[in-house]
């Protein structure tokens, strides 16, 4: 397969006029979006607007029906399922609203799991897991089964797990949706703070403006189209970051 290279420097991740339908329902219509390396971007929009579909297309979970998705100079949408799966395991991290942890395993086991599945050695994997759990203020709970943790603690374990492989991009879909306001705020603060320290790009889907306010900028998805408010906002020149 031929993989074209993007001119350098360019965005780390880019959707170019992508369409995606579910049966007769069109979720995305010529949606375009470019994300710079190290940026924290919020994707906002009403329920059913297509924001999660856009995230899934950017993450290579869905393939668009039309258009292109570029990641780090490669056409993501042209890669085989196996290659996309490998990329998701090595270059991407994921945080969802809930349900991504194995409740019978400890926090440390859950965090180390992606490294162990990638054939990493046990000792360094657990060392890295312990370091992340410490930075997420969970050191004391590393031996606790995640099924016994509170929602906020479990989300912090999920963040540690998403970061453990040192991914280039973290995709977060409503990461605070199941949490109360204060806990959600703490989780976002830790996610963004840690991602910045690690130089990781973060793309977060949220309907919560307070969560979006933790990002460098936000885009709106409406009826499957992406609106970048700063494209027409005269005050925003240079305001990003």
């Amino acid at each position: 397969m031929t993989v074209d290279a993007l001119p350098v420097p360019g965005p780390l991740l880019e959707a170019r006029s992508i369409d995606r339908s579910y049966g007769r329902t069109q979720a995305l219509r010529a949606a375009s979006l470019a994300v710079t390396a190290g940026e924290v971007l919020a994707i906002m929009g009403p329920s059913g607007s297509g924001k999660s579909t856009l995230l899934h297309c950017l993450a290579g979970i869905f393939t668009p029906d039309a258009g292109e998705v570029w990641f780090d100079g490669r056409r993501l949408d042209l890669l085989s399922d196996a290659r996309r799966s490998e990329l998701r395991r090595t270059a991407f991290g994921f945080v969802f609203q809930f349900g991504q942890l194995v409740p019978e395993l400890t926090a440390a086991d859950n965090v180390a799991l992606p490294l162990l599945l990638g054939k990493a050695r046990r000792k360094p994997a657990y060392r890295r897991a312990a370091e992340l759990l410490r930075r997420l203020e969970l050191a004391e709970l590393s031996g606790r089964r995640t099924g016994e943790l509170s929602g906020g603690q479990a989300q912090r374990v999920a963040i540690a797990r998403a970061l453990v492989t040192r991914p280039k991009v973290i995709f977060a879909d409503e990461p605070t949706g199941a949490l109360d306001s204060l806990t959600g705020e703490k989780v976002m603060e830790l996610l963004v703070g840690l991602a910045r320290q690690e130089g990781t790009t973060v793309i977060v889907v949220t309907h919560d403006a307070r969560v979006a306010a933790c990002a460098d900028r936000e885009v709106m998805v409406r009826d499957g189209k992406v609106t970048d408010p700063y494209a027409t906002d005269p005050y925003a020149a240079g305001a990003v970051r």
Partner: protein
Amino acid sequence: MTVPLALLGLLDREPSYGYDLKRAYDTYFGRGRPLPFGQVYSTLGRLARDGKVTAGQSEPGDGPDRKRYAITTLGKQEVEAWLAEPVAAEPFLQTVLFTKVVLALMLGHDAQGYLDTQRATHMRRMRELSEIKRGGALVDTLLADHALFHLEADLRWIDVTTARLGALAEMVRQP
């Protein structure tokens, strides 16, 4: 309106000199907009004239002579009544937004574009406030939270109006 009441409230805690009152006001309520000395003393003068505070005799200090102010019973009653009365739940900003949206639709302007720009302006302010909260003192955090929740409410209104813009346009264009 709140400066005289805030000063009265601080005096209800303990009698104070004007300088100490200003310092306490700036610490808790000033947040980057310190109260000018002139306003402190003119406000105390009015409160004394209205019988809500009393001014003691001039005392020599490090600088100019100073007076110790104390709250009166009337002043205490005013503070209590003010604290007990809820603040009017005024939809102050929404009415401006609503007027602009309706006029934009009536005049055939880009109401959607206006709402998008307003949304971006709100989000930018919310980012600034979130930045203030990071590592800020508790008082700054709580004040920033207050502003954030208000801005969030406006954003919800903007989103709902955006969703209903078509219906609103139809209504306002009817002769």
